[in-house]
Structures are given as structure tokens and as C-alpha cells.
């Protein structure tokens, strides 16, 4: 029987590392995705993911309920932004690495090589657009559009108000759209049939 997050958190608070590792296995792909899309490099994303779970285990006693996933994303995104600030670089500085992450496997079904190539190139353009966003807008977009958090969860994860999250998300989507429309050959038909 699969345990609920709240049950795993309760056991983790009592020092049950095995219970916490169930949490790790459950969310490590999502945390890694957030970290990678925040900082743009594989090695840094893995470091941040590991540090996220170490920090979460240490601070599990301070978790006050609510969305565990949002809490983990908050730790990961904070670590990612801190990393970028401490290294004094923009995430797009390491864009070449981010476009072809050799250690990552994309979780997708069967597709032709052409489709894979287009998807890969379009994915690179999307990632480039995401990495070009200001930190707060990037995090809002990642949490809501990529990871599927609700507005309330994203507000909880970022410590901002719902209205602020809405505003950040709106700006982030507009900027990404503006970048993508410059590569119409990569875009699906619904981008071209405007009006």
C-alpha cells in the first residue's frame, strides 16, 4: 500500500530515513526538472537536487503541512537562484550544456528521428526562452506551467501573493511566446493559424 505524503513526513520526522527516501523517489524527477530548468546545467541541477533532499530531511520538522511537492520545489528553486547569484552568472551562460544534457533521458514515447530532432530543437528553444527570464518569473512559470502547481501552491512555494504570481506568470508567458514566434518552423500549426 502506497503511503500518503503526510504519513511519510510523519515517519521522517521520527528519523525514518527509509520513509523519507520514498519521498525522494517520488519527487526526485520533478525536483531535478525544476533545478535543471532554473540553472541550466546538468551537474549543478544534480547538486541542487541532492542538496534539496538533504535540506528537506534536516528541516522536515519545520514542514507545516500543505503541499509537500510545493515545499520541495521552493527549496530547489531557492537553491537554484542562490547558486546563480553566488556564481554571478546567468543561466543562459551555460546554455550549450543545457541544450544537450547527455546524462538525461527524456521521458517520452516512441517517435521518429525527425520528430525527435524537431522536438529536441524546439525543446532547446523553449529552454533557452525559460532561462532568459528573470528569476522570479522563471520560477513562477516552471512551477505552474511545467510542474502543474496551482496558483495557490505556487504562491505558497514562492512566498508571494497569488496576484503577484499571476502577474509574474503572465509576463513570463508573454516573453517566452515572443521568443518562440521567431522560430516559426519549429512551432506547431496552432501557432501559425492566428486569428
Amino acid at each position, binding site marked *: 500500500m502506497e503511503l500518503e505524503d503526510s504519513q511519510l513526513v510523519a515517519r521522517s520526522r521520527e528519523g525514518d530515513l527509509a520513509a523519507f527516501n520514498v519521498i525522494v523517489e517520488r519527487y526526485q524527477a520533478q525536483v531535478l526538472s525544476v533545478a535543471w530548468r532554473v540553472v541550466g546545467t546538468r551537474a549543478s541541477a544534480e547538486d541542487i537536487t*541532492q542538496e534539496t533532499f538533504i535540506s528537506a530531511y534536516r528541516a522536515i520538522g519545520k514542514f507545516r503541512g500543505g503541499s509537500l511537492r510545493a515545499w520541495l520545489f521552493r527549496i530547489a528553486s531557492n537553491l537554484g537562484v542562490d547558486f546563480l547569484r553566488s556564481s554571478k552568472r546567468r543561466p543562459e551562460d551555460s546554455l550549450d550544456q543545457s541544450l544537450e544534457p547527455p546524462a538525461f533521458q527524456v521521458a517520452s514515447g516512441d517517435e521518429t528521428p525527425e520528430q525527435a530532432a524537431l522536438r529536441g530543437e524546439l525543446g532547446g528553444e523553449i529552454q533557452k526562452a525559460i532561462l532568459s527570464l528573470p528569476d522570479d518569473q522563471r520560477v513562477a512559470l516552471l512551477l505552474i506551467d511545467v510542474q502543474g502547481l496551482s496558483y495557490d501552491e505556487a504562491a505558497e512555494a514562492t512566498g508571494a501573493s497569488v496576484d503577484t504570481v499571476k502577474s509574474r506568470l503572465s509576463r513570463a508567458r508573454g516573453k517566452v511566446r515572443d521568443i518562440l514566434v521567431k522560430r516559426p518552423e519549429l512551432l506547431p500549426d496552432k501557432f501559425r493559424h492566428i486569428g
Partner: protein
Amino acid sequence: MIGFLESRRHARLQGLLSVYIDGQVNDSERARVEAHLDGCEACRSELTTLRATVDLLTSLPQIVPSRSFALTLEPEPVRSYEPLMWTARVVAPVAAVLLVALVALVAGDSVGLITQRVAGEPVVVETTASDGGVAATQADASAAVAPAAAPEAAPAPMAMAAQAVKEETKVAQVERTAAAEEEVVAEVEAQERALPKAAVASDTTEEAVEQPGEMRSLAPSESAGEPLPPAPVAAMSAAADMAATIGQRTLDTRGSGQWRRASTVAA
């Protein structure tokens, strides 16, 4: 004027498009947006591209990790050096007390304080002898008495006078000895006034334990004797630093990397 108002209304409704896509507008906002879209080609175009962008973002694949991030050891590196830090916290006060005692001993030896207090009388004799005052008085008295005592047939009054002179000489000797003792006491007080410096040095030892650099510079200059080796304190500080370094390395080897120090943990 009408164009300006229309432009502002257009911009405001454009700002609602993102929320409109997510269905997060209230009924009033939805009605206004849809009414505007009916008559605004630009906003319809924007809504289309924005919706397509959101569709792309929401369909981005999840990254599959190449390894597990499960924790194999309890990630509390603080514990790895905490016993050493605990030992340092226990040993440091003891070392500080020993250091205070050492400072006092060396400072005392340098001015002969301990020797005076254990054998105070010989110091007085030595000091008066070197002064020469009492000896000269005794010689003068002998010289004064000798001529009077030389004649064997000296009358009794002469003998009495000689005795009186001897008694006066003794009184003078006692007074001068007392004066000499006062000088010695003054000297001892002067030496004791020098002691508070050592005491100050000792009082700051506890701070110096936390700041070994200051301790090294303080001990030799403030104590009058041999420069004190700050080795115990410095060694403990070095041990604590080393332990902290080991702890940090433990953190680093767990994958946090060089950015670890600047990161913060959301709680």
C-alpha cells in the same frame, strides 16, 4: 483622449489573457475579456499564441534522473565534527584557567614577588645591607663611644653617658630599620602595582581563547617575564578549525559543491 483610454483598456485586458487561459478570472472579468476579444483582432491573435505557448510548456517532458538521490546516510555532517567541538568547549575553559595561572607565575617570578612573600625577612636584611645606612650609623656610634670608653678610669657619669649614647644609637637604628622597611614595603607595593597588568592579561584569556590571534600578541607584551607560549589555546583553535573544515568537506562530498556555503534552506 478616446484612443488613450481604449489603449489602456486594451492593455489591461491583455494582462488578463494569461489568467483567462487558466480559467482563473471571475465572471465579471470573463465577460469583459470575451467582449473585448470579439472586437479586437490583435488580442485574439495574442490569445492564440499565448495558449499555444502554454500548451508547449505544459507538455515539456519530465527529466528522468540518471541516478537515485535517495539518502544513504543521515545527512547531518554537523555531527561529524560536533564531538570535537564539544571537547574543545570543555577543554578551552580549563586551558584558559591554566594559562591564567601560568601568566601569574611567570609574572611573579620576573619581579621576585613570590620569593618576597615566602621569605620576606631576608629581603629586608639584604635591602638594608645594600643600603648601608644602618651599618654606617653603627660605625659612627662605635666611633663616638670608643673615645669615651677608652679611658679605663672613666668616671661613672661617663659610663652612663656612653650607655645613653648606645641607647640613642639603638633607637636610631630601630628608626632607620623601620624607615628601611617602609622603603621595602613601598618597593613591594610598586611591584604589586605591576601585577595588575598580568592580571589584565589573565582576565582577557577567555576572550583570547576565542581569538587566538590576540592571545598570541597579548601574552608576550603584557607579561614582564618570558613570552608565554600560546600553544594550548592555538592548538585547540587549530583543532576546532580543522574539525570545522572536516565537517565542511563532509558536506561538500555529499554533492553540495562549491556553492554550498551561499545557499539557504527554505523552511
